[in-house]
């Protein structure tokens, strides 16, 4: 008797980049990406991208949805919704379908919205 094959759910393969490491290069993740540390290069996921307060991203990012509370130097291409928390600081362009910005967030760049953009 064999167990059925199961597809990997995004929450089952969440990449967590903590404060104790630094990632450099092209990171293509299988599931959600949560960053509390430092990433440089580029990030790609078909799922959620979370940047926690204190994190630094020096990278272009492609994701389905995003929550940003840290600092980003680079462009964000988001297929669905992006949320900027009050501690967010973004130097770069954002492409997304829906955007919410909390009072206090900093955003310097261009924004293109409304079209359906695939994260793929």
């Amino acid at each position, binding site marked *: *008797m*064999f*167990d059925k094959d*199961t597809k*990997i759910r995004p*929450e*089952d*393969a*969440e*990449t*967590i*980049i*903590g*404060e*104790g*490491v*630094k*990632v*450099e*290069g*092209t*990171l*293509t*993740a*299988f*599931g959600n990406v*949560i960053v509390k*540390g430092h990433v440089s*290069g580029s990030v790609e996921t078909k799922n959620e991208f*979370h940047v*926690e307060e204190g994190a630094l991203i020096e990278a272009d990012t492609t994701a389905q949805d995003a*929550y940003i*509370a840290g600092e980003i130097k680079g462009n964000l291409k988001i297929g669905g919704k992006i949320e900027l*928390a009050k501690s967010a600081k973004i130097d770069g362009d954002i492409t997304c379908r829906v955007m919410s910005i909390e009072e206090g967030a900093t955003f310097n760049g261009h924004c293109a919205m409304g079209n359906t953009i695939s994260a793929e």
Partner: protein
Amino acid sequence: MYLYLYDSFLVNPKYRKIIDRIENRIMALSIDGKVTRLTIIKNAREIVVEQLKRGIETVVVVGGDELLFEAASALVENRGVLGFIPIESNSQMAQILGLPIGEAACDVVSARRIQQMDLGKINNQYFLSSVVLGSNNVKIKCESSYAVDPLKSKLIKVSNLDWINFSLTTHKKIIKKEISNPADGLLELIFEQSGGFSLPFFKKKAYKKDSLFYVKNIEITKAGEEEITLTVDQTKIMKTPATIEVAPRVIKIIVGRERMI
């Protein structure tokens, strides 16, 4: 046909009673087979490979986790099914695979609930559980596309089937992962820092889980002058440089109903 591989520590007379009970249960369930008692001069891997050639279809390890790891590496490419009758209550694999200790595990072997699992491969040698290194003086490259600088990490673990005990609180949710998934075609790469919670009477160092990556391929090389030691499946020692990759679904293991995976 079954092969029962008895661990070398079972020669100690204190295990006589539990072995008798196991053998009686095996007979009662009609899953008896060939018995090989390991000694320090008999190599488990060679025995398993030889017996598979002779038509053995199921290899059942009777003993501890270390022998299970050794037998697993010989059973790759689905050449047979691996069962486990754990003897001691501190068996980590028994808990993960959902196996009771002693003769009750015979019923699990008999039920043949089989799960196909991945193995890890380090420099072309298979491992079932994990690879651990206790140094941050290394360079780590994943998927040939990005590097992870371990910075302040004190312990780095590559896990296929092991405890990872990772928890993280984000603004939206609490993430908890207890066990690595041995059937997802990926390995868990975990970085730990010092500073975790420990009680004063435990001398073991406490570490705090910091980062978690899911990868198929990892290259580990030394960052300084000296090669770094890696511990494979809790026993085997290897040195850098090391290439670690996942071998997806290459082994069949009998698991219990109470398994954690």
